């Protein structure tokens, strides 16, 4: 059976050890994490994890996401396939300056791949490319076959859903409401 790449988005309280809680759930389900990226979200105190993994089907994802969501420190977890997302990775390529000069013009490479040049020194030239996996990979292969790549690094995926609002804000609004109701109840007692 061919596997599908899923992107799992997790919002959590910013607390030590949350990543460990999430990864154990992947491990127990025998799911291999392809990429992972973590950063503070727009809301203070809330962290956002973007994780990609290959899985057989949606049933696996549904169970996974419920188990993550169940952890006390997790605010919300959901999964998407690529169609629902705008997603991006970053790649950095370090090339030897000498080899670049030997190679001659690199204008066509810069245009073809929309490369940005971050650094040129006596020893090295650093390229930056943003894109999907296939795109950053294509540049890597072309560079490797022509100029040679000294170092290469690719970031984890970051992604945004195409729908209008971030689902987290809905959830937080609802929780705020529930909290107010609870406090009301307390006052009444």
């Amino acid at each position: 059976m061919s596997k599908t790449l899923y992107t799992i988005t997790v919002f959590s309280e910013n607390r030590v050890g949350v990543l460990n809680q999430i990864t154990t759930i992947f491990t127990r389900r025998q799911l291999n994490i392809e990429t992972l990226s973590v950063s503070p979200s727009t809301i203070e105190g809330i962290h956002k994890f973007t994780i990609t993994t290959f899985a057989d089907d949606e049933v696996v994802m549904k169970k996974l996401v419920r188990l993550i969501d169940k952890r006390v420190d997790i605010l919300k977890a959901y999964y998407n396939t690529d169609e629902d997302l705008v997603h991006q990775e970053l790649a950095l390529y370090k090339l030897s300056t000498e080899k670049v000069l030997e190679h001659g013009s690199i204008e066509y490479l810069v245009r073809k791949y929309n490369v940005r040049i971050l650094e040129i020194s006596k020893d090295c030239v650093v390229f930056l490319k943003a894109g999907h996996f296939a795109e950053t990979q294509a540049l890597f292969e072309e560079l490797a076959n022509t100029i040679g790549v000294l170092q290469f690094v690719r970031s984890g995926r970051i992604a945004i859903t195409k729908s209008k609002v971030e689902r987290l804000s809905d959830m937080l609004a609802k929780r705020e409401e529930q909290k107010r109701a609870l406090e009301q109840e307390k006052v009444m007692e």
Partner: protein
Amino acid sequence: MIVKENQVQSVVALSASMEVAVRGENRMGEEANARKEIEAREEILSGSEIIVRALMAEGVDTLFGYPGGAVIPIFDALYDHKERMRHILVRHEQGAVHAAQGYARVSGKVGVALVTSGPGATNAITGIADAMMDSTPLVVISGQVTSNLLGSDAFQEADVIGVTQPITKWAHQVRRVEEIAWAISKAFYIASSGRPGPVVIDIAKDAQVNSCTYSYERTTFLRSYQPVPEPEEDRIKQAAELINRAKKPLALVGQGVTLGNAEHELQAFLEKGGIPFASTTLGLSAMPSGHPLNRGMLGMHGNVAPNIKSNECDVLIAIGMRFDDRVTGNLDTYAKQAKVIHFDIDLSEMDKNVMTTVKVVGDAKQTLPLVTDYLEERTHPEWLAEFEPLHEKEYDRVIRSELYPEGGAIKMGEVVNKVSEATRGKAICVTDVGQHQMMSARYFKFTRHRSLVTSGGLGTMGFGLPAGIGAKYGAPDRTVCIFVGDGGLQMTMHEFGTIMEHAVDVKIILLNNSYLGMVRQWQELFFEERYSSTRMKNPDFVKVADAYGIKGRKVTRREELDGAIREMLGHDGAYLLEVVVETKGMVYPMVPAGESITNILLGNSQ
């Protein structure tokens, strides 16, 4: 070698400096005392004092534990509160956690255990894992090395959070005194709300010793955690409609009913719909054993009729149970004909093992009455009658000879039945794990809620004795009968010391077959009777009990049994009744692991 010596030296130096620190605290001049008084008024308290106050604020009056270097300050604080906070000193930290479990299971309150860092905490792991599997509300407080030593392989340091995180509902390390009250408040809220479970709070020693202002607020809300999902009206209606249309409904009752205190709501629901039901092992005492709709126990060693009928009913109503493999057998052939309604508080249990038609997520105490309102009153006499021949078959092939044998060695079921009758089904039945456990679950009769304490999910041998001790503290007015095997008793037999020291009145019924019986049964059935490492040479258990001042009696002949049970129940205090039962008894019926739930072995006996 040199390296080793150095390590030893530094350990000695460390514990020496620890002692100096402790002594220094105790040697307080008058001036310091006066200052302490003022601080108390301002409620500036040491971390340890805060821990004890916070526990009292949560209504804790009993805790089970064992001291050590990293919790001496907490034990010191307990010394001042002996009247309000009872500490039961166990003999091994596993026992502390099991006792807290027994306490929680019978009382419905949060059980609390207190253990030291490193080996104290690792000894507690089995109990914590057991509580996780059986959704038992626990707060386990472990001491931890001083915060600046964390991560340095300090003496008695273990990564308690790393180890316990996957087997707890929440695990949190406290490094600063200011966090203690907050963490304990959260711990109790998380442990007891929603689907309950164990919480570990790992508290660095310096946080226990330092001081800060104390105030306590009970937690009632965490934005990242919604313990009770709100009932959905359309699901409630769909469930009721399905049940109203059902010709052959069958309800499966799990421990969730007990955890949600929804026993009365369940009874009203079942009676209005005229729905026959069967229980998982942990669900057993949620409904009276003698209820006219009760069709017994489900699963591997459960009753024939409800197992067969699981695969014949048209609507299967699961309530607070999780379709464990011991209940369903092979999932590929399980209840395929039925529409399934699943009531549970935990969304992640939905469609986990069995795909459902209607999911009723929420607190059964809320959701059941909502569904009951829409139910039409029904009886289903023909459907109920269908269970009878199956039950008769089981009675003829298995039950009669187990309960009323005509000669031969004493049988386990026979003993359980006699104890159950002698206590008129009012006692709390605590079990260890093995054949005697299944016999207890099968033949003990329940008339009261929260009356069976057994390790279901993890199946932990050694659970019974300490859990029984805890159960007695949780329900001091009730008789506690602990059924235990010769193997399992020896896993935590040192808790005889706890029974002796605290004069815990538990009745221990040792069903001694001189075998690790349940494993032997599998070897007999599936490994050509090759009894590898299951025969056991046992000590004189009555003598061991005697050494602890526990009254005991060994029974080998059937004629003595009734008298001995009477003597045990009449005795004021703990009692060990060792009954020598047949060595090669079998627990039937049995569904071999992984087979279809209707593939039931009944054995050869007629």
